[in-house]
């Protein structure tokens, strides 16, 4: 039925009908009680008319008035008004300023929802993780608050310019949180950070995540193109950076990107001076307890890390607290980490490995020691000065200290546990490192950890495990995780000591790449195993032995071999620092091996010398490199993994 009503009629008469109806009522004096019939009659239209009375007054049919009124009321309708009821009574009085619609605080920006939609776990696995206690309701800041309350005077951070107790750290985090909230940043917003391992990084990390923000890290070595990709893909709202880094004008580049990218709203810089359009981090600190409308919970994403991109463009890896903080909490007893420990990370916090060991120490209530920029001397000197007890490093960090005989030169006796990760760990480096520290501390132990941005700490050697296991293995799966090795041909699960593709499933494994459905499809099996792309074996005790990367395999005339063993052998040559073998296209054989090396100081080497060396090690001829390229510097990821893609470009 049309009722003869048009939209124009609603627009024309809507306001007067709304006003004349019982929707708005005005009464002057007290005419009914006083039986003042004249006043009552005169004020009828102000106290509200029926549709029939309105119809007579404005010249419409009563039915038309009804339609006009209903549509106009709809226009005035504000949703969820009834939610105000739940804020009333029970000792609470209505205060306009105190009220916030509960649904308002649950609103996420569209970009934030995109990221949340990337969080997809398999329900049956989630049930298992929760039932077994792998996942609980914990956040980065809940651990900080715990120690700020329970051991406020314990040292949380030692950095080059001073120290902070847990209480002091918490206070500074609250101040910065106030500043970030003041910018209008809200839960689910991505905030990018390009900072070294400084106290500013730590404060930003806690402050961003305190209100439910998501930190996205940018490695210090990244420049314009890489940064633009990350800021754009992550839809970051703010970037926190140095004013400049070495010869890189960070602030200026970020400002240019802010003008270019619609999503980037704020450039925030450390230091005391900033160009126009850049906010100073120090000025964003305001005292007081932050009013956080929608505090983060365990299932929220809080990190958006990007893969190092050794084989392709970086991929966005969202991680939830339950993934990452759960992984760290479960690792604490395995490393016997306690509040007395002083932990140092040689790895940058922009990378998963750096954050992982920071989290482990935080969960234990231990002290984290900050090393802003890695230099062999700097690391050794800091260990001696701070009496570090645990260290998380990569083989290149150890190799450089060994090269310079720094372990003998400095006091490493406080080191009780050293964890290696970041790339395949050559046995000769681990052995040499351990032997040198053992001289100073007879009880020191080493460990090996294997993980990826996608898996966090997936496997690792335990502090109480077999002493020599870490020389060859990255240990068993972390609590909450499972590992298996499958055939690359048909996907069947292989028995122990047979090489195949490594697959991981578990509570620390990420939910899927952000905004990259193709990669997600290619990276997971139907039953939720993540295909790592690494070649590995499991020994009879399910300890992981990494053997290489699938993409590194060289197919010479159809005969395939993994160059990882050969690379390790070549690196043990006294003249060679680092070595990487990549496949070189060949018309006859399809592929041949090309070896890239960096040489030790004032040394040189030829292809023939390498072949003679490999022959002396009884390596079959088909695995010898057939071309040698000596380069000054290996292209490395921030965690010192060789970027083979860049080597291929040099062929």
């Amino acid at each position, binding site marked *: 039925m049309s009722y003869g009503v048009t939209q124009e009629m609603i627009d024309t008469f809507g306001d007067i009908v*709304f006003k004349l*109806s*019982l*929707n*708005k*009522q*005005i*009464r*002057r*004096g*007290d005419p*009914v*009680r*006083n*039986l003042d*019939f004249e006043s*009552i009659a005169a004020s*009828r239209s102000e106290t*509200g*008319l*029926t*549709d*029939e*009375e*309105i119809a007579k007054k404005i010249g419409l049919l*009563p039915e038309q*008035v*009804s339609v006009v*009124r209903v549509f106009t*009321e*709809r226009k*005035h*309708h*504000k*949703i969820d*008004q*009834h*939610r*105000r*009821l*739940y*804020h*009333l*009574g*029970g*000792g*609470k*009085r*209505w205060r*306009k300023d105190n*009220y916030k619609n509960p649904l308002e605080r649950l609103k996420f920006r569209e970009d934030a929802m995109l990221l949340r939609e990337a969080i997809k776990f398999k329900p049956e696995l989630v049930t298992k993780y929760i039932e077994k206690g792998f996942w609980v309701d914990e956040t980065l800041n809940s651990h900080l608050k715990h120690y700020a309350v329970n051991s406020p005077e314990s040292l949380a951070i030692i950095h080059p310019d001073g120290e902070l107790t847990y209480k002091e750290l918490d206070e500074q985090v609250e101040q910065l949180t106030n500043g970030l909230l003041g910018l209008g940043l809200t839960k689910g917003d991505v905030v990018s950070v390009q900072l070294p391992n400084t106290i500013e990084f730590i404060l930003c990390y806690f402050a961003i995540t305190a209100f439910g923000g998501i930190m996205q890290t940018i490695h210090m070595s990244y420049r314009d193109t890489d940064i633009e990709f990350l800021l754009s893909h992550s839809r970051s709202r703010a970037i926190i950076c140095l004013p400049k880094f070495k010869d890189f004008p960070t602030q200026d580049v970020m400002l240019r990107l802010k003008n270019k990218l619609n999503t980037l709203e704020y450039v925030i810089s450390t230091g005391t001076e900033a160009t126009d359009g850049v906010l100073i981090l120090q000025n964003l600190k305001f005292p007081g307890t932050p009013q956080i409308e929608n505090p983060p919970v365990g299932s929220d994403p809080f990190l958006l890390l990007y893969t190092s991109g050794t084989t392709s463009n970086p991929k966005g890896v969202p991680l939830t607290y339950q993934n990452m903080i759960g992984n760290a909490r479960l690792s604490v007893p395995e490393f016997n980490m306690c509040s007395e420990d002083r932990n140092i990370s040689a790895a940058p916090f922009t990378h998963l490995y750096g954050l992982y060991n920071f989290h482990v120490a935080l969960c234990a209530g231990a002290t984290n020691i900050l090393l802003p920029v890695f230099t062999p001397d700097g690391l050794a000197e800091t260990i001696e000065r701070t009496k570090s007890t645990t260290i998380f490093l990569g083989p290149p960090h150890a190799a450089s200290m060994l090269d310079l005989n720094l372990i003998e030169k400095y006091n490493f006796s406080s080191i009780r546990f050293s964890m290696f990760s970041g790339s395949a760990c050559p046995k000769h480096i681990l052995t040499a490192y351990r032997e040198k520290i053992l001289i100073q501390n007879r009880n020191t132990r080493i460990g090996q950890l294997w993980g990826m941005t996608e898996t966090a700490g997936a496997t690792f050697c335990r502090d109480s495990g077999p002493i020599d296991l870490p020389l060859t293995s990255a240990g068993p799966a972390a609590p909450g995780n499972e590992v298996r090795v499958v055939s690359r041909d048909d996907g069947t699960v292989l028995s122990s000591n047979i090489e195949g593709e490594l697959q991981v499933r578990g509570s620390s494994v990420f939910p899927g790449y952000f905004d990259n459905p193709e990669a997600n499809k290619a990276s997971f099996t139907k039953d939720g195993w993540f295909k790592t792309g690494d070649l590995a074996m499991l020994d009879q005790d399910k300890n992981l032995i990494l053997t290489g990367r699938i993409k590194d395999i060289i197919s010479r005339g159809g005969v395939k071999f993994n160059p990882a063993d050969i690379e390790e052998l070549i690196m043990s040559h006294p003249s060679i620092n680092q070595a990487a073998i990549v496949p070189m296209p060949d018309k006859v054989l399809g592929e041949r091996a090309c070896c890239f090396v960096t040489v030790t100081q004032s040394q040189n080497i030829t292809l023939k010398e390498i072949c003679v060396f490999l022959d002396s090690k009884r390596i079959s001829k088909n695995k010898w490199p057939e071309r040698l390229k000596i380069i000054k510097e290996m292209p490395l990821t921030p965690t010192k993994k060789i970027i083979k893609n860049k080597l291929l470009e040099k062929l």
Partner: protein
Amino acid sequence: MKREKFDPHFVKEECEKYVKKKGGLAFGIANLESLEQIAPQGHNPTAMLPKVKTVISIGVGGGTQGSWSADAKTLAYIGDTETMAYRIAYGLAFFIESRFGYRAIFVPPDMDPEKGARVPMQSLKLHAEVAGIGARSMAGDILLHPEFGMMYYASVFTELEMPPDQPMAENPCPHPSCVTLYKRTGQTPCQKFCPVECLSGSIDENDQIEEMKYDSHACAEMSQQYEAIPSVLLDTLDAKNPIERGMALHGPENQVLWYKLSIGAGELLSLCYECMRVCPITQTALMANPVARGAGMRQKIVEAEAAARTEHNIEHESDKIK
């Protein structure tokens, strides 16, 4: 219907007694002529019961002191006692017909579907105000009584004649403390604490209500759930995605609406009773049966009377022996 003549004052007293006995707080008779003059056409008493002679208004109390201190959702469930008022009025209508033989009608407290938004068939507030058991306040014309505070009202129309009461001589609103606050801040407490700011107005120099403004739409949006139902359905249609749509219909707040609707529609709710069907306590609880309970009580009375008689007889016999 045979119509015996009764003394109107006696009738009024009898009706008031009935109402008070059943739990009513206030009882009053509204002047019919005044109502006929004030109520809009179609909403006057004779439009509903043409030969009406008397309009009875009764009031029952609102929440207990405890419920006024409870949170809003608790108060919403236990604070409104209008059904009690309706029950008394319904009983009173039957009482008048059976006791005095005159027609009476329980005035439906419902909206008039033909007349527009929030237009009642009869204004129960108007009846109560004219009957002198409430006066319009600054709080959206909610009626207040100096002794009983806020009440819920129900009305009965009857062809039996009773003498009318007068409207209250004085309006208890605004209370002196509210006047003080108004003079200091420009707002009465009800205006200040309204969550949707639907109340405004002013007090004159004689500390009386000068003007009362009430945004009924804003008030109803928050507190009248029946008006929320079409909004819920429209929100459902407007929802951008399945989660919004699902929450519009199944969100906890909105589910309360369907719950209430289901109760109103006499739908089956929650219990299959299989567990209670096999429960020995439930099945052997004889006193749960009102007939059995009545019989049991009667039996007890019979036994008590018999015991009393026996005792009396024994005493009587013993007297004889003495």
